[in-house]
């Protein structure tokens, strides 16, 4: 008989500052040693659920609780946050917020320092735990020398040093690129096996989470549990689709081909998927799809010629980069952290000055133009909208760049109104920005740049950490701008974005271009994928597994079909 470790019974929670409860009538039991994934769109209440487990609710975030939540048989609201943290270890989403110490060893030791453990004992334990997460070589390293994946390893070590019973991961993949995400899931699996803990993972990147086996997936939406199934059953159902969650691409492909996905096919991972019975159906679907050729438009709007740049003389950040972007294109720029993507965007906007090479805009040399001069041609949108917004009202924010330029008031109003209409923000023009969702804020920042009327937009990670609904909202908006003639460059790790929206991608590694090709070719090329920390798309692997003759063409066919499906979905809704 399995022993329950966490039990929610008719549990309802309402934040003090809100009118409606965030969690309604939750009934959920998690057993010792289980590995459970909780998925749900943004605002579904999944983070609040996590806060209930680690005690931030109700001890830091006050509110009203009804019903009961017991952990190891103890009612949590009668405990305190320190006692709870001995049972439930939390790895937060933001690695820079979680990593408090200045060095790896110090951060791992943080909880022990607070318990006033003697130094020699502390040092021994830190080494033990660092070994477990494969960081013992880096114990003396400073946080600033670590990659995102390594920071996360340290965060995990800092939590398991407490010998907790339950490990809670709040969106562990949100800040990681696809390849590091796979490694993170493998590490979580390994930690579970070595420490015998119960694991709860809150995430919406389901396909990446499923790279390792999990016991159950709980879907939560609008504060209620929608389903509680094993992964095979869940993927065979249509729960994900109705809750606006992203299905794994290979499952979507099977469904597009008219194949009924059943739990018996073991769809939870490509490795286990039984495909023999449906192979023919899949290849029939592929044969029926004729691959449409993309039209080429040879009107260069932006050209880089032999660009060189380095922050200091000895180490070049950008080395001999040349490419040409045609008017109306939508292109992804991909590469590992530190490959030079952000530097490249700063160079194009004039924030950094090139050391050698030339930049052309519509065949005109703009290499020596200032930032301000370029901003009417090329706009840059930062990853985090909060880094750009400085006004309270939407109208004022969008008008800011024009006011600074000293335009007459009636012209400002005209241009701002026009921009707001293009961006679908006109009805909200007198709203405070703080009342908007993340996706809408992103729109405001894009509008504030568009008001300057640039013809090229560069966006840094526009969809990082967003759920499917916000992702779609942002990307469909960009797509619409693109159709209206704005050329768009996207810096991204998001493979879905590459496949679904940008026909072409430029891959960077160590400041050089290693591939400038179609997104499909890049995501099916093992060498490029490895050097850019991406993954081979599961569509390609599905095609291989099904024995399809031209697997690359299968990926293209899927993308075209998906585009059409989305178009019909949009015109219908």
């Amino acid at each position, binding site marked *: 008989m399995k022993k329950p470790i966490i039990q929610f019974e008719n549990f309802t929670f309402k934040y003090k500052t809100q009118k409606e409860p965030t969690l309604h009538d939750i009934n959920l039991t998690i057993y010792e040693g289980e590995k459970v994934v909780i998925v749900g769109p943004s605002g579904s209440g999944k983070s609040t659920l996590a806060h209930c487990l*680690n*005690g*931030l609710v109700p001890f*830091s975030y006050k509110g009203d609780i009804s019903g009961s939540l017991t952990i190891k048989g103890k009612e949590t609201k009668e405990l305190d*946050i*320190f006692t709870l*943290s001995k049972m439930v270890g*939390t790895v*937060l989403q*933001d690695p*820079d*917020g*979680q990593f*408090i*110490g*200045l*060095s790896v*060893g*110090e951060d791992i*030791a*943080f*909880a*022990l*320092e*607070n*318990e*006033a*453990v*003697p*130094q020699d004992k*502390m*040092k021994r334990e*830190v080494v033990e735990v660092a070994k477990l997460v494969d960081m013992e070589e880096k114990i003396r390293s400073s*946080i*600033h020398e670590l990659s995102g994946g390594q920071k996360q390893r340290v965060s995990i070590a*800092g*939590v398991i040093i407490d010998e907790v019973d339950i490990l809670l991961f709040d969106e562990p993949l949100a800040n990681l690129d696809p390849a590091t995400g796979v490694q993170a899931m493998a590490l979580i699996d390994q930690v579970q096996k070595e420490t015998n803990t119960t694991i709860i993972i809150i995430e919406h990147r389901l396909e990446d989470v499923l790279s390792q086996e999990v016991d159950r997936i709980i879907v939560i939406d609008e504060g209620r549990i929608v389903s509680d199934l094993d992964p095979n059953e869940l993927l065979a159902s249509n729960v994900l689709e109705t809750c606006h969650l992203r299905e794994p691409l290979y499952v979507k492909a099977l469904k597009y081909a008219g194949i009924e996905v059943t739990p018996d096919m073991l769809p939870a991972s490509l490795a286990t998927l039984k495909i023999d019975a449906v192979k023919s159906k899949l290849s029939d679907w592929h044969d029926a799809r004729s691959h449409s050729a993309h039209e080429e438009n040879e009107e260069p709007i932006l050209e880089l010629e032999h660009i060189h740049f380095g922050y200091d003389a000895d180490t070049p950040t950008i080395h001999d980069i040349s490419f040409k972007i045609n008017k109306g294109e939508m292109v992804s720029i991909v590469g590992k952290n530190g490959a030079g993507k952000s530097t490249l965007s*700063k160079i194009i*906007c*004039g*924030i950094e000055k090139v050391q050698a090479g030339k930049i052309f805009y519509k065949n005109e040399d703009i290499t020596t133009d200032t*930032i*301000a001069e*370029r*901003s009417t041609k090329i*706009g*840059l949108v*930062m990853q*985090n909208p*909060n*880094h*750009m917004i*400085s006004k309270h009202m939407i109208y004022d924010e969008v008008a*800011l*760049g024009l006011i*600074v*330029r000293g335009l007459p008031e009636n012209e400002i109003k005209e241009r701002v109104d026009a921009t707001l209409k293009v961006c679908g923000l006109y009805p909200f023009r007198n709203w405070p920005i703080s009342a908007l969702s993340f996706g809408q804020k992103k729109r405001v920042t894009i509008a*504030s*740049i568009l008001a*300057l009327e640039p013809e090229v937009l560069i966006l840094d990670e526009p969809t990082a950490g967003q759920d499917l609904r916000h992702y779609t909202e942002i990307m469909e908006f960009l797509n619409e701008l693109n159709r209206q003639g704005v050329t768009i460059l996207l810096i991204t790790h998001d493979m879905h974005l590459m496949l679904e929206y940008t026909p072409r991608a430029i891959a960077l590694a160590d400041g050089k271009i290693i591939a400038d090709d179609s997104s499909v070719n890049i995501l099916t090329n093992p060498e490029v994928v490895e050097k850019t920390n991406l993954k081979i798309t599961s569509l390609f692997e599905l095609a291989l597994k099904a024995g399809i003759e031209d697997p690359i063409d299968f990926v293209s066919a899927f993308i075209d079909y998906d585009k059409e499906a989305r178009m019909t979905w949009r015109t219908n809704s």
Partner: protein
Amino acid sequence: MANEFLNYVERKSPVHSLSGATKLIIFILYSTAAMLTYDTRVLIGLFILSIVIFAISKIRIREVGFVLAFILAFLLLNNIAIYIFSPQEGVKIYGTSHVLFEIAGRYNVTLEQLFYQFNITLKYFSVIPAALLFIVTTHPSEFAASLNKIGVNYKIAYSVSLALRYIPDIQREFWTIAAAQQARGIDISRKEKLGKRLKNVASIILPLIFSTLERIEVISNAMELRRFGKKKKRTWYSEKPFKKADYIVIIVGFLILIASLVITFHDGDRFYNPFL
């Protein structure tokens, strides 16, 4: 101006191997001595001593060059300002007037004024090597432990550690924000009218403040979930235990402070007066 802050310099030297708390105590004793005294002999003694310690630390001048350049510029300007505002300050302090030559009006050059300005420069200068050394030879991880060891409440000591931990992150964030706003034409360096420039600055600082408030929230949660503040005491992973050398250095430090105070004040005057 360089876009850098001073950094810890990793090296093997007797100064590096002292505990951070020892260096902090020495820094405080040293600053106290240099603040209280105006005795030329003491100042020269302190200055030579700190140059010797600097040599022992194996820190190279060029590693702290940009800072020295700034301080020299500051001292030059300060000396000019002192002379312009108060050319007779030396005469006032030392009570005699040995005029070297006249310039105009009350502006002349006296031995007393030169000696006074030499002393004030020396006073600023003598404390610099000690402060510099404390920063570049003490690992930032040790700061908080050292403060706690000399009696500062551990929570406040930890807030210093947090500041050091997050300065690079916040700096990077600040440049990102500044770049984003500049790309929209909001420039603070340009020759705008002062009022407008102030408003432009606000639009760069505001995003930084809101993200700072968010950051405070995230870090507080992370610290609470790992039981910061649970006990009255806390231990430190990076604390260097006291060795024999630490005790010796601290005792010597106190002796030097006492000696410098005795030399300075035994005649009831803070200034050493060679003109009497």
